């Protein structure tokens, strides 16, 4: 807790330092930082009190005059030199502080996974790029931030805009997926804490979102948004190891897939889909301009759906059944979990801030058997769920609020949670950004528009 609090203070100090209408920063470089130090290095440093001070100093002193520059990259473009006062020559501006700055310095919960063997709950934090581990019994009625047992955070972790998480209780490991920035699956140990390298990592297709382990098969599956695919890997895959099989194609009905559950008991892959579909072609700056792209299929909007595929499926294979239609109430379903003892599927329904529960064998346009929704539930923009059959609980990770909420496993309707886990003090707002990368200004309403 102390580490998070101080680092948050440090981030705030940086924002405030940047927001001051101070003169151009042109002082000599900070010898404590060194010319190639990063602010994230400092944020992740063990001595966080000193780091907070150094960050505030760094914000006031950049750029560092005389810092080494000029490493030549591909195409002759020089790396570095941007911080030099001499570049660009004779230009207006330079190091300029903003007059206003909007960001959220606190973690936001994204994925959640529970380990009832070792009594731990792991959350991914998309906002600060960290993994937070709590005791299973964490939380309560306090308005203060809940102290995590572990916190994996910093540049060595290679955590970017992470989404789904998974846990391997037998090996005491947890997994997460970089949805953007890095295209990696990273695996950490229960002994890992702070700014540490992952125990292993695996390159994934861009926009992978969730991961689910199949311990008996010794495999895992990941969802890939942009290629509408499910890719399967051996559990121990590392580096650039290729998938052992992939389910992808028009027949699959995979459409902007998000949450996934590898149901080894029934040999099925269960996937939550948002319904967006478009063809994928080579698009990157490293692919040629003209390629053989085959028959053109235009984009489409389809309803959100839960698809079920045979666990051994490979290629362009249709689902064995699908839950889809108006009665389902599915609306941007994100993470899912399966309660094998009750034979139920639980979905975090982001679009209407609800948790919706279906029978595992359901198909077609069916109503959920339970819906958890309403002001009392404190469910706001849920992104993932985890079922604890051992302790009869249901965990919900909120992206729209700085909380996770815990209910009795079969809670229904507009009911209060048993416990609340907070990653920021009560009523702390959240900007809701997920790697936002564009903006527009609405002159009529005097508003700033940001797509996510």
């Amino acid at each position, binding site marked *: 807790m102390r580490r998070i609090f101080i680092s948050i203070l440090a981030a705030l100090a940086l924002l405030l330092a940047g927001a001051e209408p101070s003169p151009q920063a042109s002082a000599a470089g900070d010898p404590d930082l060194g010319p190639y130090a990063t602010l994230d290095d400092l944020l992740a440093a063990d001595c966080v009190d000193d780091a907070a001070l150094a960050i505030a100093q760094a914000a006031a002193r950049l750029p560092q005059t005389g810092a080494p520059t000029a490493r030549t990259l591909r195409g002759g473009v020089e790396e570095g030199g941007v911080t030099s006062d001499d570049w660009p020559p004779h230009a207006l501006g330079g190091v300029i502080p903003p007059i*206003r700055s*909007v*960001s959220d310095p606190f973690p936001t919960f994204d994925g959640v996974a529970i380990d009832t063997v070792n009594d731990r709950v792991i959350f991914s934090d998309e906002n600060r790029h960290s993994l937070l581990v709590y005791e299973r019994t964490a939380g309560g009625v306090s308005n203060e931030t809940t102290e995590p047992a572990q916190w994996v955070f910093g540049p060595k972790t290679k955590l970017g805009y992470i989404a789904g998480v998974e846990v391997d209780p037998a090996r005491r490991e947890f997994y997460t997926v970089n949805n953007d920035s890095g295209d990696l699956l990273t695996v950490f140990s229960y002994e890992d804490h702070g700014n540490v390298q992952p125990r292993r990592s695996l390159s994934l297709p861009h926009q992978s979102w969730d991961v689910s382990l199949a311990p008996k098969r010794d495999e895992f599956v990941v969802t890939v948004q942009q290629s509408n695919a499910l890719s399967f890997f051996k559990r121990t895959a590392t580096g650039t190891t290729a998938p052992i099989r992939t389910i992808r194609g028009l027949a699959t009905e995979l459409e902007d897939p998000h949450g996934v559950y590898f149901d080894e008991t029934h040999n099925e892959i269960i996937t939550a889909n948002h319904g967006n579909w478009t063809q994928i072609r080579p698009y*990157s700056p*490293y692919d040629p301009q003209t390629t053989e792209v085959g028959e053109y299929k235009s984009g489409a909007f389809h309803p959100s759906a839960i698809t079920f595929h045979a666990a051994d499926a490979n290629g362009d294979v249709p689902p064995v059944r699908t839950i889809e239609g108006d009665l389902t109430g599915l609306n*941007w379903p994100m993470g899912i979990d399966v309660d094998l003892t009750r034979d139920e599927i639980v979905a975090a329904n982001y*679009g209407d801030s609800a948790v919706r529960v279906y029978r595992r064998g359901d198909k077609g346009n069916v109503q959920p058997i339970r819906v958890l929704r309403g002001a009392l539930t404190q469910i706001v923009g849920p992104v993932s769920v985890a079922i604890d059959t051992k302790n009869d609980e249901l965990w919900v990770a909120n992206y729209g609020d700085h909380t996770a909420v815990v209910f009795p496993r079969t809670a229904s309707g507009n009911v209060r949670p048993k416990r609340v886990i907070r990653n920021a003090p009560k009523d702390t*707002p959240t900007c809701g950004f997920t790697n936002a990368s564009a903006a*527009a200004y609405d002159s009529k309403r005097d508003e700033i528009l940001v797509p996510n």
Partner: protein
Amino acid sequence: MFARLANGNVAPKRVIEGQATNLSRTMHGIAYDAIHDEIVIPVALSGAVLVFKADASGEVPPLRAIQGTRTRLVRPHTVAVDPVNNEILTADPSMRAIVVFERMANGNVAPKRVISGPKTGLLDIVGLDVDPIRNVIVASSRKGNGDKVGLFVFDRLANGDVEPKQFIGGPNSKLAHFRQVAIDPATGNIFLAQQNTRMKQMEAYVLDKPREGFKAKDDDDDDSDSGHLDTMGFIAVYAPDDNGDVPPRAIIKGPGIRLAGAAGVALNPKKKEIITVGGNGFQTFLLPDFFKPLKKPGGTAMIRD
């Protein structure tokens, strides 16, 4: 949507989201049409361009949706609107093209013009704006080896496989990993958001197959807001007639931009404000001089303080 004066950790005033909107949670562009009071948004994951009422809030359907086989759209990433000539422009990195539609286009409609082909030099097009006064389209496009990484300026009515009339890029420009473009209509000044000065990292996969010869780098965090200080991004500003391997005539750099990652840039010419967005935040800069005609480097109007 945030109030212009928002500052600190604040929640948006309103949000358009949910199934009925036909949006996704992956969108990389936006344009506001001040004349018709509409918002235009590309949805890469469903090959569509959507138009909403500008005061829309919550789970509301779009006014219009451009999507279908006649559109030829695959994954449109960025948009611009020309309310003077009644056109919507989008750039699609999967098509390697700039595509122009009637502003009121709705449904499965063919584009009016498509700029694409080897002569254009366009590849990974990530930013786009249109200047209806000077009749130009400006696109930011990247090619991985450093060749043709920069700003491409076309005649507004260009169509087909045509060469750009101007190109800004090269080692002296330090352009590498950028995204959104914005044009100040009064001066024609071109603003570009650059995330960092390293070339865009090669992705590990092509479609669903591992990329041949791909080697993961240790230092692969090139999309995030945690770039190294020595390769930090910036907001670059060019005069409308700039051409070649030239440095920006005006720049914003430093800690504020680093926090933003500088992937997006928007302008408020009336208040002389520049909004930069990236990572998980946005910043606003007050710079009246950036909204004046930019003199050639070394001119007496150059101020560096």
